[in-house]
């Protein structure tokens, strides 16, 4: 996974996430991503880059462990192609005051 900026900083350095062993995010149809979605907005609207386009497999890769539950999914996908659920209770992002 590439970093966000040239200076090698990633916002995920400042987030605590309790990662579940199951993904709470699924792509409904990879075919739609490949054939019907020109700009692939999920690869840029997501504030932690959970989604990335993989040239090798021609698929959207989902790094669900990076999700901070901003709730832009599933609204953001123009084809309603993201099956987004809350992580199970207690899992996922744990926001803390001043990162303590």
């Amino acid at each position, binding site marked *: 996974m590439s970093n*966000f*900026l040239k200076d090698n900083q990633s916002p995920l350095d400042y987030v605590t996430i309790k990662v579940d062993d199951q993904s709470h995010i699924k792509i409904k149809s990879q075919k739609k991503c490949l054939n019907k979605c020109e*700009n692939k907005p999920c690869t840029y609207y997501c504030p932690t880059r959970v989604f990335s386009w993989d040239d090798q497999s021609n698929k959207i890769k989902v790094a669900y462990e990076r999700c901070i539950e901003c709730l832009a999914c599933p609204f953001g996908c123009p084809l309603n192609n993201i099956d987004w659920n809350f992580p199970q209770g207690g899992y996922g992002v744990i926001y803390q005051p*001043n990162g303590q």
Partner: protein
Amino acid sequence: MGNDRYNVIIVGAGPAGSAAAIRLAQNDLSVALIERGEKPGTKTMFGGSIYADPTSRVIPEFWEDAPLERPLVTDEFWLLDRDSAVKVGFTGLKYKRSPYNKFSALRSKFDPWFAQQAVNEGADLMTSTLVKDLVYEKTGLLNKKVAGVKLDSGEVIHSDVVLLAEGASANLTEKAGLRGEIETSSMFLYVKEELALPAEKIESRFNLEPNEGANVGMIGYPTSGIAGKGGLWTNKESISLIVGGYLNQIIKKGASPYQMLSRFKAHPLVSRLIDGAKTVAYKSRIIPKGGYESLPQLYDDGILVAGDAAVMISGRRGTDLAMLTGLYAADIIAQARAAEDYSSRVLKGYDKRVSNSFFMKNIKKGKGGHQYQKDHPDADYLLTKAANDAAYKFFEVGSESSSEKMKKIRQEILDMQPIKKTVKDIYYGLQDWSVF
């Protein structure tokens, strides 16, 4: 885990849910307050200001005890262009004393404290618990009413009534058939950083004394071209910085929220305020900006909706309207219990109360503004540019007479866009930001 039957189940321990829980428990109703986070406040974020008057209706003189950052005495609004800003502001030192006006706060501290007040009144708080579904019971041949919730563990808990205070995603509200699909043009996506900075630095940079705080709202440059906003709050020993815009415009323009934030932080008038500050937290969250058009139905048999899930948002407010709708819901539920009738016949009193409230008038008033932003995504940007160009001209020491100068400024603003639109831009821009 307490009993398996309650008078009221509340989904979500945010400001709406906890306010309702406090009031209900005070009225001796049995309350389960259910939160999916391992603690309240681990999933929530805002700018943010906590408003003194509405919050003190839930807990009088809450400032004596609540984990707040600074009483806000300075409120500024900046029209930010590339290397300039037109600033409007007010400092009122009266606001640093009781009954105060607003406080800066961090939700990951405030929310757990607020929920704890409900527990102190007798509510059962269940954390790390996700409500998956609503459970119904038949009330006749054709009718059914909400009778409880199903948890992610599979367990079912029963209640007379369920209050949805689940925030912006409004999943269960949708499942209950109380709202339609949400459009991306009704959603704002924000990112936030909290940056640690010693108190003395904060005070000297913002011209404050200890226990005084400042809030700066900004439009224009932070989001360029996308109708959006930036904001800055001084905390005790940190600065909260947010930036965001309409989700559909972010999608259309290929913008990345994180890069928007980096660009905002690098602005010469912003970077000097956060110079030397160390990033300690990164957060992100949507906010429903639909306003009046997208309000869901607020009640049905055995169920009510409050707070963000009910799109109770107006300008920069949100937590306060969440708390007030939580209180109204609690009052109606208490009436329903007295009448032993939790059907929509009684619960519709909540809708009436909300419709007649002062904030509904504001939400309705904002209706045109939302449509306007939709139709003119560049409005804030153009307005900011015009104001800054004019200000540069106005303050420049040159050799033309002041009447010539004013004439030129006027001409330039008129040239930029039809004057009617400029005036509207200012009006809607301010209205969207107003604190009323």
